[in-house]
C-alpha cells in the first residue's frame, strides 16, 4: 500500500456538494462512492443525482425494523446501493438536480448514466479499508459527527469520541502523517469528503486520525463496483 493516497489527485472525485438543511448525507455518500467506481470502470467522472435517491429510494433494511431510506429524514448507504441495483441506475446531477427537499419521484430510466454491479461491506480493519480504497475507489463510510459541528481544520483525533454513527460521508484517501504539535508526533489520517459545502472544514473536507476506529469511522464501510454498460 502506498504511504499516502488521494483519489482527488486521480480525478475520481467530484467537487464538494452541499446537502443544505436536509438529512440526506447518506445519498451524497452513496453517489460519491458510485461516482468513483464509475470513474474507475469507464474513465469518465460524472456527477450523479442525490435527489433521485432522496425522492425515489424507499428501500428498507430487512434486518432492522424502520430503517428505511426516507429522503431528508435519513437513510443508509447500503440501502441506497440496493435501490440503485434494483432501479437500474442513477441519472446525472444536471438531469435530476438537487433541491434539498423531499419531492415526488420523476426518475427517467432512459437517462441512466451509472449503474451498480455489486456492493459489499469491508471488514473492520484499517489496512483492509486502505486496500479497498486503493483497489476499488472511494468508500462510503459512516461516522459519529459530534466534533464536526465545530471543526475548522487539522487532523481531528479526539481523546474521547462515541462510536455511534449518525452521518454518512465519503472516504477518498489517507495520509501517512501530519504533525500534531501537542502530541509531538505525526499522526496518520483519513481524508473524508463531506457534503456541507466548501465553506465548512478544509474546503469541505475533514481529516480524522487513522487509529482505533475513532468516532466509529472503521465500523461501517462499503465498497461499490460500477457496471459497464454495453451498447
Amino acid at each position, binding site marked *: 500500500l502506498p504511504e499516502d493516497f488521494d483519489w482527488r489527485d486521480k480525478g475520481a472525485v467530484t467537487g464538494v456538494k452541499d446537502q443544505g438543511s436536509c*438529512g440526506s448525507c447518506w445519498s451524497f455518500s452513496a453517489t460519491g462512492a458510485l461516482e468513483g467506481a464509475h470513474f474507475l470502470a469507464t474513465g469518465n467522472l460524472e456527477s450523479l443525482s442525490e435527489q433521485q435517491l432522496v425522492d425515489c429510494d424507499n428501500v428498507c433494511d430487512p434486518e432492522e425494523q424502520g*430503517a428505511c431510506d426516507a429522503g431528508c429524514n435519513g437513510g443508509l448507504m447500503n440501502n441506497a446501493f440496493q435501490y440503485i441495483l434494483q432501479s437500474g441506475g442513477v441519472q446525472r446531477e444536471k438531469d435530476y438536480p438537487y433541491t434539498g427537499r423531499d419531492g415526488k419521484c420523476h426518475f427517467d430510466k432512459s437517462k441512466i448514466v451509472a449503474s451498480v454491479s455489486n456492493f459489499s*461491506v469491508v471488514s473492520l480493519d484499517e489496512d483492509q479499508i486502505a486496500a479497498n480504497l486503493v483497489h476499488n475507489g472511494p468508500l462510503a463510510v459512516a461516522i459519529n459527527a459530534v466534533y464536526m*459541528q465545530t*471543526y475548522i481544520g487539522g487532523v481531528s*483525533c479526539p481523546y474521547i469520541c462515541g462510536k455511534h454513527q449518525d452521518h454518512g460521508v465519503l472516504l477518498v484517501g489517507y495520509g501517512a502523517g501530519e504533525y500534531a504539535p501537542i502530541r509531538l508526533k505525526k499522526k496518520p489520517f483519513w481524508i473524508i469528503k463531506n457534503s456541507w459545502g466548501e465553506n465548512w472544514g478544509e474546503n469541505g473536507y475533514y481529516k480524522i486520525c487513522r487509529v482505533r476506529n475513532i468516532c466509529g469511522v472503521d465500523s*461501517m464501510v462499503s465498497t461499490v463496483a460500477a457496471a459497464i454498460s454495453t451498447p
Partner: protein
Amino acid sequence: TTVISDQATDSDDLLIRQVVDDDHSLNAEHHFTKFKTTFGKTYATEEEHNYRFAVFKSNLRRAKKHAKLDPSAVHGVTKFSDLTPREFRRQFLGLKRRLRLPADAHKAPILPTNN
C-alpha cells in the same frame, strides 16, 4: 500590548512578555456579528436573534471544550454555530443506523496489503 516589567531584572529585561488585549477578540457579541456577516445570517425577530445569540455563546464554549479534547484539530465558529446540537443533528445528519452490519451483506474479499 503591554510590557510586564514588575518582575524584570537586569538579566531578563530583554524578555518581553506580550499581553494581547483580548477584550475584543473574546467578546461573544463581536464574534456573533462577524459570524452573521460571514455566513449571511439574518433572524426574523428580536426574540429569535436573542435566542440564536444564546445558542451561539453556548457553541463558543462547546468549541473551546472540543479544542481541549481534540488538540490536533482547530475548532471554533462554523456556519452551524447558531444551531443547538439537536437542531444540527436533525437538519444536517441523516444516517439511520445502529452499530450493526446487515447479516446478509456481501463481505468484501480480504485483499493483500503487503508490497
